[in-house]
Structures are given as C-alpha cells and as structure tokens.
C-alpha cells in the first residue's frame, strides 16, 4: 500500500464548525444544550486491539464520548493515546486523558499534536494520583506541569498556534478542553474557586470525580452558579455503580479522592443483591443530579461493571430517546 491508501483512515485537517473549537461530537452535543453522557473505559493490560474494541462496545451504545484513562491510580495499562487512536478509527468519539504525573512538557506537547493528528478531539487535563498508590511505587513522579498549566498550554497551542517556547505550530491541534473536579473532597469551600481557575486556564468541560453525596454536590453547584461558572463551562457529574459495601469501603480508604457517605454503604450492606442495589442507587443518583441546575451531563465510571453502563443510562432516561451510537468507522 502507498501512504495515500491510508488517508481515508485518518482525519483531513479542516477548520471546526462555526462556534466550535473542535470537531468533537461531545462539544456539539453540549453546545446544543443536550444532556451529555460520557463513560470511562477500563484499559486492557494487553497489546491486542480487539481487547480495546471489546471494552468499548458496551459503552459506545450510550456514550457521546469514551474516556481513555491515563494510568489512573498510577497503575500501568495500555496508554490513553493508543486507545484513543484505535477507538477514533472505529468511529467512537474519545476523551484523551493526560496526567501530569508521567510526562514532562516536552513529551506532552508532542503527544497532543500526535493525538490530534490521529483524530482525537477531546482532551482531559489531570494532575494525576501520586505514584505511591499504584503498582510501581518506585517510579519517578514527574509533575512538570499541573492540570492548570497543562490546560493553558494546550489552549495556547490551539488558539495562538504555538508551543510554550514560542515556536510556531503550522496546523494547531483542534481540541475541546476538559479538566476534572472533585466537589465532595476537602477543601470543599475552595473547590468552586479552583474550578474558576480551571476555567480561566482554558477548561471548556469538566468531568467530576464520583458524586455520592448529593447535598454536598448541590452546595457546590449553588456556589458555581453564583459565580456564573455554569455559563462558562459544561459540568458533567461523575457517577458509578457500587459493587458491594466492602468494595465501597475499600475504595474510600484506598483510592485517593473518593467520598462515599455512610448511609449509602449501610444501604449496600443491607441489600440482598448488592450488584442490583448498586445499579439502582446509581440510577437514582443520575436522576437527582439531572435536576440540579447547571449540570450539563454525567460521566459514568463503572470500573469492572461496564456491562451495567448502558442499562443504567437507558433506565435513567437521560438520553430522552436520543441515540448516541457510534458513527460508521473512519475519522470524525
């Protein structure tokens, strides 16, 4: 095959639609004012592309975009850029995650160009968990950037068309910029202020960590609305089914940044079928979250419970009959 035979598999560089910053489907859905759904993919410990497609299949039925995590929890898996590139070719919209833990600014800026060239249109900028909680605690933590300097850097690449060094980028990456937020975690009083900083740095959408505490989240959102932030950034609230009371407790004490209130754990404890109860709680949470003003969508993180994702979303009714299935294979 000659190189030109591959061109139908990669996107053609073209300006984004009017009023958009990228060709992202997620951006389109959000700007159109629809309730968006994103879902997190459990990355395989394998080099077989079919493992990626198998993992994406149950999510793609309902998600507007699939998040490819970047060694989350500092555990080594297939890279986010690899997963994103594969899924983009198969017609899925993906969110490419970058954690500042593992790469310095030189590597990151290069990866952003590479990802954009492969058709990735959404990027989520994360600080990343410390290496100590992962499977290779002896690794060198990089943290050259933090999530905000990362956001501002990619925005500069996109809007100013240059690297941080000032060198020109001939064809800037067109990406919809995202960041994370953790509303239910200390210092709760300052979380909305930090969100404001993220918006200032360039965030256009936010995916939060798990929300299990609705009153706490409501308080956060009230501040967010007072600050007018809900008008400047699309907020997708993080949800996920609990597997069992034991798993919830383990998660709470071993995974950084997760808050599960006791009454919820009690409810899981008492349930006859914890799996089904976890799913039910998740659906209830989604329905409650949807009623909160300023929330633009949900982000489902169903680690090892991916099979439940489409049921949860369909039963919650948030899609309102909207089909967010993947397009025909090929670039977006």
């Amino acid at each position, binding site marked *: 095959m000659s190189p030109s035979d591959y061109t139908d598999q990669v996107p053609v560089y073209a300006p984004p639609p009017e009023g958009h910053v990228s060709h992202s489907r997620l951006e389109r859905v959000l700007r159109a004012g629809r309730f968006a759904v994103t879902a997190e993919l459990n990355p395989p410990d394998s080099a077989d592309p079919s493992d990626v497609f198998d993992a994406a299949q149950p999510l793609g039925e309902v998600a507007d975009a699939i998040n490819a995590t970047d060694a989350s929890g500092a555990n080594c898996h297939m890279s986010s850029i690899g997963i994103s590139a594969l899924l983009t070719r198969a017609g899925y919209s993906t969110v490419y995650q970058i954690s500042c833990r593992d790469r310095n*600014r030189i590597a990151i800026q290069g990866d952003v160009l590479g990802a954009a060239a492969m058709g990735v249109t959404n990027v989520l900028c994360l*600080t990343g968990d*410390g290496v100590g909680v992962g499977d290779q605690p002896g690794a060198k933590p990089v943290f050259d950037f933090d999530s905000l300097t990362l956001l501002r850097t990619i925005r*500069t690449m996109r809007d100013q068309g240059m*690297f941080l060094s000032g060198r020109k980028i001939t064809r800037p990456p067109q990406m919809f910029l995202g960041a994370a937020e953790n509303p239910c975690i*200390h210092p709760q009083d300052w979380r909305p202020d930090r969100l*404001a*900083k993220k918006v*200032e740095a360039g965030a256009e959408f936010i995916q939060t960590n798990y929300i299990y505490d609705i009153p706490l989240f409501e308080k956060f959102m009230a501040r967010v609305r007072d600050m007018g932030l809900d008008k400047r950034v699309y907020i997708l609230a993080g949800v996920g089914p609990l597997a069992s009371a034991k798993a919830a407790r383990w998660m709470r004490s071993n995974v950084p*940044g997760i808050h599960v209130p006791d009454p919820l754990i009690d409810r899981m404890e008492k349930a006859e079928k914890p799996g089904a109860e976890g799913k039910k709680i998740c659906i209830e949470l989604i329905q409650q979250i949807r009623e909160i003003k300023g929330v633009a969508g949900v982000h489902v993180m169903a680690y090892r419970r991916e099979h439940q994702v489409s049921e949860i979303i369909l039963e919650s009714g948030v899609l309102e009959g909207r089909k967010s299935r993947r397009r025909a294979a090929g670039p977006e």
Partner: protein
Amino acid sequence: MYRARLFAIRHSRKFEWIYKRVEQVMVALDPVFAKIGYGRVERPIALVEQGIKTVLFDCKMCGQCVLSSTGMSCPMNCPKELRNGPCGGVREGGYCEVKPWMKCVWSLAWDGAARMKDGDKIREVLPPVDRSLKGSSSWLRVSREKAAKLREAREASRTAVAEAFPEARAIEPSSAPLAEEPASAVNREVLKK
C-alpha cells in the same frame, strides 16, 4: 521546618507585610547590586535567602518565589509540586494524599490567602516552574526586575510564556540567568516582527 511553616501560614498577613518590605529594600539596593555586579552578589544573597526561608517556609529555592500568591505556603512542599493546587486527592481533615502526616500545602495556601491583603492573587493561574532557575535567589530578582525593564527588547523572545501566563512577566524575565543570553537563544523570528 514543618511547625514554623504552619506558623508562617497562620500569620500569613504579617508575613505578607514583612515580605513586601524585604522587596522594597531589595529594589532600593538595585544600584548597589548593579555596581558590585549581580553575578557577584548572587551566591551570598542566595545563601542568606535560603537560610532564612528554609527555616520559615521550608523553602526549596525554586528561584521564582510565589509565596505572596500562595498564602505564604510554599508550593514546592506539595509532593506533586503543583503551582495551582490543590489536587483532587486531599484526605479527610485536609491531609495530603501522598504524605498523609502532612497538611495539604494547597489547602493551607487558600486559607492563608484568605487572611492576606492581596490574597486574591491566588486566583491567577501561575506559570509552570522554570526548572533551570533552581537554586538562584528570588530576592535578587526583585531588584533585578527594574533593570530588566531596560532589557525589554531582548525579552520579546519570551513573550510566548508571558502571553500564556500573564504572571510570567513578573517572574520569568527577572529571574532569568544573570549572564547575557547567547545570541543563539534569541528567537530571530520574534525579533524580526
């Protein structure tokens, strides 16, 4: 010292005041430093600065001090060296995700900033750390800042970082290396404009 650091943050307003005075003195001394030569005073002043700031703030001599923007809580003590924290992993009660025995540097920073006169500076996005400045004196940079204005033209090549991070102008050029920049480091394209 962890204890002293907590004390400084608790009294962030007082330390902010002291810090501003130190800055004024340094600015006033610019002609003196210029006469002796910045290169020659760099080492002794950096040593004094390190001595004082290590005791008070657990300073790591990053060379681009941002204490006045971070509630007098030195962000280089954050294990992730965040310049715009806190991260999403802060533990119950405000303890650090990575070092659970320590209070989160950034949680303290926001509290400290709230007590300061110009505490709102914490709301500005700070630029990434310039690792090449490690070990140099931040105090000297303040007085050098004035002199740096005269070298405006040469700084044109740095506008990329400055544009991305408005804060960078105040910090970056002034704390740049003392020696003349080699011609090769100057971005010709920018100069031509």
